[in-house]
Structure formats: structure tokens, C-alpha cells
């Protein structure tokens, strides 16, 4: 892949600008044609759907240069560098016969387009990498000479506004701004006391103080976690049938804490993708790896576990590339990318990074990181202390993880020489069944260091047996043995072994005198020698370890564990994406497009994660900065936040994007807080959202940021806000997901034992991020407001506008509860109607209503009272008291929480 053209970055940017400004005019004969800015858009629009990376009609494809230059099926050459006349492509584009002319059955290319292509071929038909894969040059901050900018962002924005003959909007109303920035940073409206403090503060720092305060609010992490959990496809259930509970909320809490601690984004990346591979990882770093354990799994009878394991790994590849690189890899699973220069086998070199973890689609989602309680927990701490004293903390931590995880484990796929066994590899049964006379071997083991072999097994029935372990050959050099006694479900059986020499494998032989003997072996793990002489204490500690391994844990979280090198999996290309048809074997590598020099040796997930956030990767910072920008402004600088490839949109403000990306990944040291602070401190952000006539005409979609966008709030925000303004919201953080009220019958799933039980007390009124998320039946009010279904990574929630949404905020009992609660407060807060109305509106919107709205609301009170004085029963039913006004104000509060202005950021 040595096609990268050496060129001067500034001149490229200048060319982009020039062509944007002079679009359509190609007068300068000596100007070098810019492939990305001029040629690629023509090819993508007109040619690539037939002459791309997959479909190459006539043997001619335009994604890779070498394809474009090669002989086509007709024997002609589509492109002959330096010679447009000899290039069949130009001949066909210019053909007079419409049946021969390209693009077929479409309008011919414009004169200008033809001129660009001709000149480009004349100049050698060089390809250039797509803008997003090129290393950004630090852009010069434009100086427009105006007073408007509050920080650097505004210089870039103002320049674009000028180019489009636009002027910035005035600064937003103070109250609107306070509500906006609070919703943007914490997802919640501003608390009344903070609002008063801000409004009363006339110093120059008032806004910045408010921003700092919000950035440090615990709600900050809860709000941004919602965004990240869409990408992580986090849910509290397994996905496919029967979609049972999955305890993975500790990962959700990890994300919230990471945001609240402003964990640098590079660390945030590495811990989630490869925390387990860090040297001496902490428990938290293991929890972080649940990021990729959020893939869906199945327990439907008859499904193949390997098929679904592979489907999870595929999802991990796709998710990683989408989240960090804004790249859709899913196309490449079956064939080379139709538009971007990524080749089919490169999907599998990526796949190889993720194909080596011990998890699979078994009946239980091992590996699970247990949380121990009581005596078991103190036992672990005692052992840890003892090992630390004998050796060091790192060694102790290694043992702690072994006790909580029992990993890495080896399963039938790692065994060899299996005789008289049945290997079950199906949804609800995944084990090796052994009988009297069964045997198998565990190859590639460093036997010298072994002290224990742990057998995770279950006896079927009561017939007992015996297992004998030996080195070198079957039942020669016996190193240990154990009775296989009846069990209560699966359990871990420690088999002490006595090894006196190095061998390469351990043999297992099973015996029983009872013909009904059946034993199911789920996995085997290896206990190494403790760092101490094998004295009595040693034996005691080992006995404790054996006990802990069988201790019932709670809240066991699925995490990633890498298979040992000796037992690592081979990765093959799947021919046309079919997992049953293996092609060539591949090793882990990054697609050439992203890492043309391949200077770093990337062997495992940790290497890959480090590469993602290394200075060698210009894409990550751009993609991530754009994600945060999109959440704040409702639209990214690159609108297609999920696609930075050639079919994605071009950035509206390329220099601003690069400026932010460079700051974020260098000077700001990947601090999300610094990034967000810079964004919300800009004058661009602080503009009013009033749409002027000028805006409407010249910037109808607000792509030049001539005003602040009015963005409808997210599903979680809408509910959280209603609870917050009514005083019902619980700010309790963390823990198991909760179940707010939901009508009966929403959960009605086949073969499932889980049920929805409304959480008691304040737990029914927690923030949306804590709501139990069952994939096959998510909380309905969230889905109606376009929340992600958490099946797969979702970069953008597409906002829709349907009557069903109105029905939620009007009728969902939680909104009526909020209204009734607020109404109760209104009655006590003020005396006359006018003050009550004003007070209620202020409570909901954080500002005073204008006179017109007060009039509308007073009119409503009058009509409501009139109605209720006729139908007193109705009022009584609604308010559950004799006080008719409580009903009146409940209806009013419900109306306030359905105002357009309440549902959007102004």
C-alpha cells in the first residue's frame, strides 16, 4: 500500500478551500487536481456503484488504483496514467452514443467534471487517501478581526459564517442558556438554587463557574454514560432467546465513574478493549472489559455455540471499528469494501485480535468475575495478604483474579486424543461427557509449575467414578487422581498433582465400575505453585483457595480473558463470510489503509487498543471529538458520525475538527472535560436558538452554526427532566438496574423466567440510565422516543416525531405522577392564580413565562374549573382529594410538561 502521495498539507487545504469557493470554475490550467476534493466526489457519485470494490463491471473498479489501471475484460485499459486519450474510461464517458456512454442510462457528466477527470489522468491519475486517514496538520486559527469570538472555536465558525454571508445570532437569554448547558452537561435541568446563584452573579465568571460546577456534578457521568452505552450496546439481558438477565451493571457504573473522574480517553479506550491484558490489572480494569461482553448470546435449544461465539466476535470487530474509527467493517466480512480501500482478508486480521478470548456462547456466560461476600471475601483478603508477604502485590493480585475468575480455563476445543467421549457443543449443553474408559489429553502445558488441576464438572446421576492424571503417557507417571462423586450442579474439583519433571501434556483417564457412570466436564484450569515452600501453611492456603473457587459469588460480571498463547485460536478468512468455510490463515493486523507503514508490531488486543489512541492514528481523535460535538449540537461536524469513510459526509468545518482533535489528543491529554468545556464556553454554543429570517434563507439546516440548534431531548432526558422538575427524581447512584412502573403484559416472552416487578421506593424514580434494559422488550417509553435497542453499536439515534410520543408524555403514569406531585407543590407555593401559574412555569422551564403564556394558562385554569365544577367526581378521581384545585393544577402541570419548549433545548 505505498500509494500515499507526498504533498504539502497546507497546499491541500488551500486547494480544498479554493475548490469550494470556486466550485465549478476550473480555469487554472496548471493547478494540480486534488483527488479527494475534486475527483473522488465525481467517482463516488457516478461510477462506484458499478465499478467499486466488490462489483467491478467489465473488470474495472475504482476503489484501488491497481484495479483501475489493470487490463479490463474487454482487453482495454480503463485508465492510462498520463493519457486520457488512451483511457477507455474517458472514451466511454465522452461517447456520443447514449447506449455506450457512461454512466449508463444516466445524465452525462458535466463539462466541468469531464475536464477534471481528463486533467487528473493527464497528471498521472494519482490516488490520494481519503481526508480522514491523513494526519492532520495543526490548522492556523483564522482571524476574522471581530469581537464576537469567545474562544478559538468561534474563529473557525465565524470564518465559515462569513463565507456564507451569515452573521452569528445574539447571545441566548440567560435562563435559556442555563437550562441548555445543564441539560447538555448533566442531562438534567439546573437545580433552582444553582439557577438563582447563576442569575444573581453578574461577574464575568458567572457562566464559567456554572460550567465548572456542572462538569463536576455527579450527573455528568450519568448523562454521558447514556451516550457511551449506546455505543457499547449495553443491556441487562443476553439478547437472543430466552433473553435472560445478564448481570453487567458494574460495567455501566464503571463508565459513569470514568466520566466523573475525567478518565483520559486513551486510558478509557485501553481499559475497555484490553484491561485484562494490562500488566497487573485491577478488578476495575477487568470490569471495564465487559465493554465487549455486551454482545448478544443465545440459549435457544439446538443453536450451535461456536456459531454464536463467532457472531459475537464479528460484532466486537464491527463495534470497535465503528466506535473508534467511524468505519463500517461489516461489508468486509463477506467481500472487499465496496467503497473504501479495505480488503476482505483484512476483516479477519482484525478478527484475529478478538478471536482469542476464553468466552463462548455457552449456557453460562463464563468468564465471570465473582463478587464474594462475608467470610469468603475476607478469606480472599487473607490469602492476598499472605501471598504479598511471601512474594509481592503483583503475585497476590494474580492469585486474587484466579480465585474470582477461575481462568484461563481450557475446554474441549483445547483437548487432544479424545477417546470414548461425547462432545456437546449446543445451546444449553456445552461440555465433554466422559464414561468409564474415556480419556483425553491436555497438550501444550508447562507441567513443571503446576500444583493443582481444577476440574469443573458435574456428575449425571449417582454412579461414581475416578479420574487419573498422568504425564508422558496414559496412566504412566501418575501425578494425581481424584474420585468423581455426585455433585449438586457443576462444581470445581481441586486435584493436587505432584510433578517431578517437565512434560508437554497431561493425560486424563476416567474409570468407573458402574456402567451408568456419566460425567460432564465443562472446563479445566491449572493452579500454579504458590510462592512459598510447600509447608503446612502452604497447604492451608491452597485449601482456602480451593474453597473460594467453589464459593457462590454474586453479581458476577462477564469479562474478557485471553487464552494462553499455547492454546490460542487460529484465525482463518471465512470465505464469503461463511464461518463454516475456512480460507487462508491470518495473523492479527490493522488494515493497510489505517496503518500503511505497519511499523508497530501489533499482536494482541492491547497492542491494538494502544495503536488506536497512539499519535500514529489520526482518525480516533477526529471521530471521538465529533461524537461529543454531535451530542452538544445535535449534529456532528461530520454529520455521519458513524462513517468517516468515502461515503460519509465531508466535515462542514474541517479545520475546526482537526484543531479540536489535535488539542484533545495532545495538549488536553484526552480530557473529555476539557473538550466539553471548550465547546460550551464558545460564543458559538452560547448563541440564541431563535431562527431569524436570514438563518432560514441562508442556513436552513444550521450547518454553518448561525444559531444554536433546538434539539429534542433524548428519551432518558425527557423522563429525567419530568421527574426532576416535579421533585420526584431520586439521585441515588449506581447498582443493579431498576424497574420503574410499566404496564402489565409488556414482558411476555417465550421460555423466560424473568419478570418485571416495579422497584420499591425511590428506585422507581431513578435516572433513566439505571432503568433495566431488556433487549427483546425494552422500557417502552424510551423506545418510543428513539432510544437505541442495544442490539448493536449505535452511533446516532435518528429522531422521529410521532403521535405515540405525545401519548407517552401525556398518559404514561409516571408523567401523571410527576404532574400531581408538582401540582401539590404549586398549591402551597403561591396564593393567587397568576402567581401559581408563574411559579409552576418557572419550576418547569427555569424562567418566567411571558405574559401571553400566562394568559393562556390562566384561561386553562378557568376552563378546567368550570369543567370540574360540573364533574366533581372526575376531579376527585384524578386528585384523590376533595380539593378540586389539585386536579386543576395536575392537568396544568401535565400540559406544561408537554410543551414543545419543555421537550427541546432552546
Amino acid at each position, binding site marked *: 500500500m505505498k500509494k500515499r502521495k507526498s504533498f504539502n498539507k497546507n497546499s491541500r487545504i488551500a486547494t480544498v478551500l479554493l475548490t469550494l469557493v470556486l466550485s465549478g470554475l476550473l480555469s487554472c490550467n496548471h493547478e494540480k487536481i486534488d483527488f479527494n476534493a475534486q475527483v473522488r466526489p465525481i467517482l463516488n457519485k457516478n461510477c462506484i*456503484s458499478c465499478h467499486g470494490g466488490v462489483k467491478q463491471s467489465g473488470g474495472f473498479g475504482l476503489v484501488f488504483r491497481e484495479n483501475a489501471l489493470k487490463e479490463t475484460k474487454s482487453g482495454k485499459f480503463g485508465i492510462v496514467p498520463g493519457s486520457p486519450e488512451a483511457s477507455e474510461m474517458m472514451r466511454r464517458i465522452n461517447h456520443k452514443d447514449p447506449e455506450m456512454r457512461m454512466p449508463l442510462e444516466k445524465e452525462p457528466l458535466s463539462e466541468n467534471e469531464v475536464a477534471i477527470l481528463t486533467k487528473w489522468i493527464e497528471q498521472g491519475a494519482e490516488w490520494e487517501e481519503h481526508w480522514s486517514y491523513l494526519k492532520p496538520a495543526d490548522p492556523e486559527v483564522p482571524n476574522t478581526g471581530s469581537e464576537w469570538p469567545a474562544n478559538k472555536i468561534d474563529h473557525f465558525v465565524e470564518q465559515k459564517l462569513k463565507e456564507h454571508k451569515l452573521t452569528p445570532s445574539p447571545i441566548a437569554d440567560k435562563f435559556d442558556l442555563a437550562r441548555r448547558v445543564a441539560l447538555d452537561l448533566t442531562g438534567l435541568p439546573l437545580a433552582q438554587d444553582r439557577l438563582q446563584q447563576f442569575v444573581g452573579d453578574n461577574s464575568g465568571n458567572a457562566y464559567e463557574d456554572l460550567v465548572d460546577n456542572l462538569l463536576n456534578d455527579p450527573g455528568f457521568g450519568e448523562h454521558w454514560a447514556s451516550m457511551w452505552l449506546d455505543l457499547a450496546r449495553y443491556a441487562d439481558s443476553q439478547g*437472543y*432467546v430466552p433473553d435472560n438477565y445478564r448481570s453487567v451493571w458494574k460495567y455501566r457504573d464503571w463508565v459513569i465513574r470514568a466520566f466523573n473522574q475525567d478518565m483520559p480517553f486513551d486510558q478509557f479506550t485501553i481499559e475497555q478493549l484490553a484491561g485484562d491484558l494490562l500488566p497487573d490489572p485491577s478488578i476495575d480494569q477487568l470490569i471495564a472489559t465487559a465493554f465487549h461482553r455486551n454482545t*448478544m448470546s443465545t440459549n*435457544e*435449544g*439446538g*443453536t450451535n455455540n461456536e456459531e454464536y461465539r463467532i*457472531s459475537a466476535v464479528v460484532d466486537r470487530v464491527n463495534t470497535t471499528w465503528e466506535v473508534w474509527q467511524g468505519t*463500517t467493517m461489516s*461489508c468486509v466480512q463477506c467481500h472487499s469494501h*465496496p467503497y*473504501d480501500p479495505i480488503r476482505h482478508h483484512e476483516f479477519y486480521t482484525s478478527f484475529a485480535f478478538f478471536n482469542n478470548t476464553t468466552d463462548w456462547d455457552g449456557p453460562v456466560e463464563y468468564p465471570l468475575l465473582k463478587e464474594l461476600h462475608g467470610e469468603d471475601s475476607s478469606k480472599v483478603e487473607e490469602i492476598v495478604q499472605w501471598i504479598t508477604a511471601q512474594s509481592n502485590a503483583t503475585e497476590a493480585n494474580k492469585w486474587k483474579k484466579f480465585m474470582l475468575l477461575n481462568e484461563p480455563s481450557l475446554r474441549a476445543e483445547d483437548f487432544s486424543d479424545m477417546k470414548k467421549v461425547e462432545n456437546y457443543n449446543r445451546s444449553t449443553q456445552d461440555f465433554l461427557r466422559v464414561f468409564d474408559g474415556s480419556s483425553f489429553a491436555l497438550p501444550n502445558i508447562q507441567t513443571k509449575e503446576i500444583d493443582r488441576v481444577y476440574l469443573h464438572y458435574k456428575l449425571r446421576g449417582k454412579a461414581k467414578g475416578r479420574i487419573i492424571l498422568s504425564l508422558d503417557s496414559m496412566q504412566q507417571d501418575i501425578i494425581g487422581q481424584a474420585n468423581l462423586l455426585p455433585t449438586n450442579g457443576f462444581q470445581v474439583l481441586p486435584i493436587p498433582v505432584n510433578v517431578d519433571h517437565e512434560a508437554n501434556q497431561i493425560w486424563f483417564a476416567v474409570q468407573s465400575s458402574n456402567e451408568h457412570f456419566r460425567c460432564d466436564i465443562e472446563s479445566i484450569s491449572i493452579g500454579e505453585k504458590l510462592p512459598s515452600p510447600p509447608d503446612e501453611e502452604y497447604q492451608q492456603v491452597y485449601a482456602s483457595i480451593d474453597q473460594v473457587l467453589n464459593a457462590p459469588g454474586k453479581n458476577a460480571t462477564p469479562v474478557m480473558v485471553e487464552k494462553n498463547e499455547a492454546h490460542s485460536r487460529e484465525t482463518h478468512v471465512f470465505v464469503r463470510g461463511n464461518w463454516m468455510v475456512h480460507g487462508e490463515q491470518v495473523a492479527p493486523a490493522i488494515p493497510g489503509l489505517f496503518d500503511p507503514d505497519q511499523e508497530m508490531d501489533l499482536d494482541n488486543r492491547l497492542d491494538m487498543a494502544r495503536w488506536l489512541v497512539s499519535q500514529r492514528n489520526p482518525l480516533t481523535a477526529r471521530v471521538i471529538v465529533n461524537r461529543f460535538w454531535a451530542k452538544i449540537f445535535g449534529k456532528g461536524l461530520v454529520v455521519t458520525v458513524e*462513517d468517516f*469513510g468515502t*461515503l460519509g459526509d465531508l466535515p462542514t468545518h474541517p479545520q475546526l475538527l482537526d484543531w479540536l482533535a489535535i488539542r484533545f489528543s495532545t495538549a488536553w491529554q484526552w480530557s473529555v472535560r476539557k473538550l466539553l468545556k471548550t465547546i460550551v464556553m464558545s460564543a458559538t454554543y452560547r448563541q440564541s*436558538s*431563535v431562527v431569524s*429570517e436570514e438563518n432560514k434563507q441562508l442556513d436552513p439546516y444550521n450547518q454553518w452554526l448561525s444559531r444554536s440548534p*433546538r434539539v429534542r431531548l433524548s428519551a432518558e432526558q425527557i423522563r429525567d427532566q419530568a421527574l426532576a422538575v416535579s421533585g420526584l427524581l431520586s439521585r441515588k447512584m449506581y447498582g443493579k438496574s431498576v424497574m420503574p412502573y410499566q404496564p402489565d*403484559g409488556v414482558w*411476555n416472552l*417465550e*421460555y423466560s423466567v424473568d419478570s418485571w416487578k416495579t422497584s420499591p421506593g425511590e428506585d422507581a424514580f431513578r435516572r433513566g440510565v439505571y432503568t433495566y434494559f431488556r*433487549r*427483546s422488550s425494552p422500557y*417502552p*417509553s424510551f*423506545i*418510543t422516543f428513539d432510544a437505541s*435497542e442495544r*442490539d*448493536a453499536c449505535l452511533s446516532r439515534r*435518528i429522531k*422521529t*416525531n*410521532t*403521535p*405515540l410520543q*405525545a*401519548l407517552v408524555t*401525556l398518559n404514561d*403514569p409516571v408523567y*401523571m405522577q410527576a404532574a400531581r406531585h408538582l401540582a401539590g407543590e404549586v398549591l402551597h407555593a403561591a396564593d393567587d392564580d397568576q402567581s401559581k401559574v408563574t411559579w409552576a412555569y418557572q419550576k418547569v422551564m427555569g424562567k418566567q413565562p411571558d405574559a401571553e403564556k400566562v394568559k*393562556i*394558562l390562566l384561561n*386553562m385554569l378557568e376552563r*378546567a374549573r368550570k*369543567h370540574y365544577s360540573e364533574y366533581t367526581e*372526575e376531579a376527585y*378521581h*384524578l386528585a384523590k382529594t376533595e380539593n378540586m384545585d389539585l386536579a386543576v393544577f395536575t*392537568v*396544568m402541570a401535565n*400540559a406544561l410538561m*408537554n*410543551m*414543545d419548549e419543555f421537550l*427541546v433545548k*432552546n
Partner: protein
Amino acid sequence: MDLFNEARVRQLQLTTRRHFLKKCSVGLGSIALSSLMGPQKLLGMDGLDQGGQPPLPHFLPKAKRVIYMHMAGAPSQLEMFDYKPELQKLHDLDCPPSLLEGKKFAFIQGTPKMLGPQHQFGQYGQSGQHVSDLLPNFTQAVDEVTFIKSMHTDEFNHAPAQLFLQTGNPRVGRPSMGAWVTYGLGSENENLPGYMVLVSGGKNPSAGKNAWGNGFLPSEYQGVQCRNSGDPILYISNPDSMSRNMRKISLETINAINRRQYEEFGDNEISSRIAQYEMAFKMQMSVPDAMDITKEPEYIKEMYGAEPGKASFANNCLLARRLVEKGVRYVQLYDWGWDMHGTDKSTSLNEGLKEKCTQIDKPMTALVLDLKQRGLLDDTLVIWGGEFGRTPMRENRGGVVMPYYGRDHHTEAFTIWMAGAGVKQGFSLGETDEIGYYGTKDRVHVHDLQATVLHLLGIDHEKFTYNFQGRDFRLTDVHGHVVNDILA
């Protein structure tokens, strides 16, 4: 133009430009529009860019709307429609290894026995179609329908197979057929959702709500599930004891404030909000009205076997007719409980299947005949079937003889039937071998069925695409052929 219509038109313009020009620059462009937000005729006519795609419908449609009855769990074709006397002769003999080699089954292990048909068959109608005695009423409707006896699929587990049938892909994430259709054609009734889902049998299908999901299409195209108890659509009713008059007062207040907000901010989205609330108010009337089967005359209820207040397939069939009558584009029925493995009485071919057939026999027959007598069958497509078929072998879960007669999941052959708009009457396509194991003539793949349904609606399945993450997606992926032989 009154405010409501003005707002709606604005909404449509905005929605189209914003979503469809941005989102599907290579997709449908303006013709596809919100199923909920207004009739299709407003668009596709106003000359907006259509992204170079041919407008919808691509050609004159035969069907305007669809009722799809999905028997979740997969009914046995061998006990209902695919008559195999030869299989009876092989009953209780060991299955020959040739049928087992290289095959995967969900539960069959070792060597199963062959299992003869468990019910008697007769020939009915002028067309002489085979129907078993499990469906005595349906024999009256056979001259209206086309059977396809050579259906086959790629998936042999319920959830993936249901997704495959409904979305064209065995994993979650793709839009369902109903979502595609309402996305493409919109709704004919702006006061009802364009795509409605009715579930009976006590449980949702294995694939859960993904079976009627919108996939990557905007969420307004997801099927709206009607509920068997409580609100027919979630939150359609006002809160307990809030009268319609009071709701009207409150909505008028909301919209008055929103109009005031519009004066101040000038954002067209506020007009959409006003329209949204107006429509919600109308839906609150029209949905309960449409869903109220007590309004049907006695003889109609009797015809379907419908009993108001009960959750049943019969009620859902009657509701389906009411909904299509009111212009709902796509009505999807799921009936759970067809997975006859023979593990107990309720999943046996002799008892469980008989009971399930009794539940559907009268209503599905009534649906076809009632649509016909109303002239609706001419442009309504009715489809009945499961997600795969059942084996001619008796299931032997765990390699042992099971207490009742049951059959395992089978991908190679199953039967569906279709009736109405554009489909031949009294016709049968495809044949299976003498034991019903494998389709031997005119095999129809799930993607072919999808292509055919779209074709009947005037849509070329190869041209009907949506661009998502850089790729043009189709319901039929890169497969599917229209089954021309069943077209009238």
C-alpha cells in the same frame, strides 16, 4: 389551509428533506415518508429529489395492504396440507442414514424413526386441494388460496428463522417486512399507525419485538403492537378519570403555548409538534374505535368465533379485517404455540396440534371469506405460514423415545398459503418428495417469498433499498426471485 394541515405539510417537507435527503442520499429520497405522519399522496408528487431512484410504486400494484398470519413455532405441514401417504407406509421404521448425513437438527440425535401423518386428509373445493381433518372449516376457503408446498429456509432455530422470514436476515438489526412496506408506501389512514401487530397464543414469538422492528429505518416504521388487555396501544387512553373534554382543554392549551413559542423562535419543528399533538388526539379516538370488536354484528363475530374481551387469534383476525378496512397498510399477526416436539401432551401432534388448529381454523377461514364478501380481498394480500417446517422423522430428543408424537425443526420443506390481491385462486405450487422431506419441484426460498410480496405491492425488491452505514440494504439482501407462477 387550516393550521393543522399547514403544520402537517411543513412537517412532511421537513421530515423528507431532513431524514431522507440526508440519510438516504442513495436511497428512496422523498417518496418514502412517515407511516404515521400523513398520507403518501402528499409526497412523491411535489417534485423533490428522489436520489435517482425510481419512484414507488415501481409498477402498478395488485395489493394495497397485507395481512400476515405467522404461526410462531412452525406448524407441521405433514399434518395439515402436505399429504404424504408414502410416509405412512414407512411409519416406525428407522430413518435411512442418507437423510441424516451432513444434516443438522435442533433435537434429533442418533437414528430417529419415520413418523407417518397423524391425521386424515381429504380433497376439497373445485381445485381438489388436500387439507387434513384438523381444518374442517378451511376446506371452504381452499378455492380462494394458493398453497406453496415447497417453501424452504436457511435457519432451523425459531428466533433466527423468524427474523429471517420477517427481516431477511437471521440476526437482529434489519427492518421487518412491514417496516419496509410502510416506509415505502406510507399509510392510508393518518389516524392509525401504518403497521400494526397483533399477538395471540399467550406469548410473543421467540424473536421478540425485533420481528416487527424498524432495524435501521427511523423508529416510526416499527410495528405498533396492539395489546390484548388494557390499552389497545400503550398509553392511548387518557389517565384514569381524565375525560376527553379535559384532555381537549389541556391539548388546546399545549398547542396555544406552542404557537406562542413558534412566534418567538420561528422553528418549523414547533409546527410539527403541534401536528403531532393534534394527531395523538385523533388517534385516541380512532384506535379504540378500530379495536372495538363489540361494534361488529353478531353473525360476523360468530363467523370468526370472536369473543370480545378475550385474547384470541379469532379476535385478532377480526381486528385485522377492521384495520385493513380503515387503511392500515400492514397487519402482522403472530400466534404462539405451534412448536410440536412431542415432549408433552400440549406439544404433541395428536393433541396439541389439534387444539391449535381448532383455534385458527374458523377465524382464518372467516378472514378470507369476509374480506371477499366485502370486496377487500381484491387488493388485500393474506399470507399464512410458519418460520420453517417439521421433519418426517419422529423427534427423539436426547436419543430416546419420547412420550408423545412430535416432529423436529426442518428447513427443507414447509407449506404456506396466500390469498387475495394478485394471487392465483385454488392453486398449489411446488412439490416435495414422497415423504415430504425435500422440495423437488418449484422450490421457493424465504427471499423469494419476500420478493413476491413486495412485487404484489408494486415494489421491485432489487430497487427498493435503504442506505445505511455506506451500504444499500434490501429486504431480500442480494437474493430473491419473484415467484411468477403464483401470480394471477
